[in-house]
């Protein structure tokens, strides 16, 4: 079975083809075109969608070429229907709808966040993990129960990705800023005290962001180090609480911030303490990509027919804990 996945929730327009054989999935191609805002600025939805429109056909043809298939060979097409930025989402949806109606291929709208989790499970082999989803759009602790992903903890305001990006942008960095902050942080060991807010399994970053901006003049490296140490310790604590409560034996970390080495080393140490296995999605697939959409679409197609074209909307606000998972 061959599935095409189209991702366009935020800064990335991406296409991927996955072949499913039995229970295994093989990524034949994963092509990404990433919109880069000017230094110190965030994503401008209109500019990002313009970028996506300009790059959509290029990404699609590169993807088909690399996977050595024709559009007609596809058994299904899936696209990220949300959550994300409206103008960006619509580009992917239009591409998916056009292909689906012209070539008469079943179409599946897919939740982007579920995509991160499903691809993570495919690539790491985790069976029944507690999931930590950390990206620009999400900061959530999830466990699967009765056909739905249930939220055991989440951020009460901004996400971990937003925290790093907004702090980085205040220093004039180009988003996403995670990598640059990680590099600077590794040059300091001088911890400056910052607000630490954990409420049960929930975290809150707004106070931390304001405070971090106030200490940046005393030294960027110290500020980056202290910000990371505080924010990651909060996430680590919330994760450990959720692990201890759910008594899960696996922890899987997915999403863009999963690429951060300091965060994963902290979580690894927690897993050791709590006696559970640690899985982290491979660096290459931690950020937004087409594969997460293609694979989730394939999973969906095993239990239901494609959507009617009239039902292929995009949903900017679409929480993953409202999605029924039947496969």
């Amino acid at each position, binding site marked *: 079975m061959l599935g095409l996945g189209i991702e366009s929730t935020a800064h990335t327009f991406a296409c991927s083809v996955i072949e499913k054989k039995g229970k295994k999935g093989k990524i034949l191609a994963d092509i990404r075109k990433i919109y880069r805002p000017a230094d110190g600025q965030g994503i401008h939805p209109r500019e990002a969608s313009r970028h996506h429109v300009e790059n959509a056909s290029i990404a699609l043809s590169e993807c088909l070429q690399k996977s050595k298939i024709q559009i007609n060979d596809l058994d299904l097409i899936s696209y990220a229907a949300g959550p994300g930025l409206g103008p960006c989402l619509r580009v992917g949806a239009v591409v998916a709808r056009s292909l689906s109606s012209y070539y008469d291929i079943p179409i599946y709208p897919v939740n982007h966040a579920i995509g991160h989790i499903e691809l993570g499970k495919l690539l790491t082999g985790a069976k029944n993990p507690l999931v930590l989803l950390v990206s620009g759009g999400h900061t959530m602790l999830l466990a699967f*129960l009765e056909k739905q992903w249930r*939220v055991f903890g989440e951020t009460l305001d901004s996400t971990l990705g937003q925290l790093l990006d907004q702090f980085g942008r205040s220093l004039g960095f180009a988003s996403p800023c995670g990598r640059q902050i990680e590099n600077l942080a590794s040059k300091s060991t001088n911890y400056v005290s910052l607000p*630490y807010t954990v409420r049960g399994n929930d975290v809150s970053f707004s106070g931390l962001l304001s405070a971090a901006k106030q200490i940046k003049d005393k030294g960027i490296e110290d500020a980056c180090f202290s910000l990371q140490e505080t924010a990651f310790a909060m996430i680590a604590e919330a994760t450990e609480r959720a692990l201890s409560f759910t008594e899960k034996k696996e922890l899987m970390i997915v999403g863009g911030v999963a690429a951060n080495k300091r965060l994963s*080393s902290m979580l690894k140490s927690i897993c050791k303490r709590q006696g559970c296995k640690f899985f982290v999605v491979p660096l290459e697939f931690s950020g937004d990509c087409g594969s997460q959409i293609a694979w989730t679409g394939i999973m969906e197609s095993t239990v239901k027919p494609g959507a009617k074209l009239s039902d292929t909307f995009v949903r900017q606000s679409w929480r993953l804990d409202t999605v029924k998972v039947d496969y």
Partner: protein
Amino acid sequence: MDLIKKGAEADIFLTDWDGKKAILKARKKKNYRNHILDEKIRKQRTIRESQIISDVKSFGISTPLVYFVDTKKFTILMQHISGTLVRDMSKSKIIELCIEIGKIVGLLHKNGIIHGDLTTSNFIFSKKSLFLIDFGLASRTAKLDDHGVDLRLFKEILNSAHADIIDKAWSNFLKGYTKSVGQKYCKKIIDKVSIIESRGRYANVV
């Protein structure tokens, strides 16, 4: 001294004190955490927990008796409560106990204290009465918003760990909560909880 639970922030040991069974809660150093931050958190929580766990007794909430606090080693020695965690009880029993849980939480809030980690594993059912444990994240606050966050925490746990009984359990919780704080405050806080929920990522703000 036997380790009985490796909790998220502390190790729980079973020991004895003056011939009675006792619990030693030790906030161990966490090597993954920056040591300045680590010390700050462990110290603050040890002191706060031991104070609040005793204070709430004065308005009738059952909590373990504190025997000894070590603010150098960050340990608390306290009474052992034998019983069952509400988390591990039958569905019908959890639904029933939610009234009492609501009452207890209401009493806390009425007296300007939030628990900060309201889960079904922090209530122990022992000989017909409910004990509230783990005050590590508790704090003194009269702010409506803080009380709302406390309630949302409990709702989140029902929604995730006890998804099949959330409707009945939550309405019972609110019934009990109303008994402690009165109808007017309860209505205010229900509105606050929905505001807090709407702040969540991708929440449906219709």
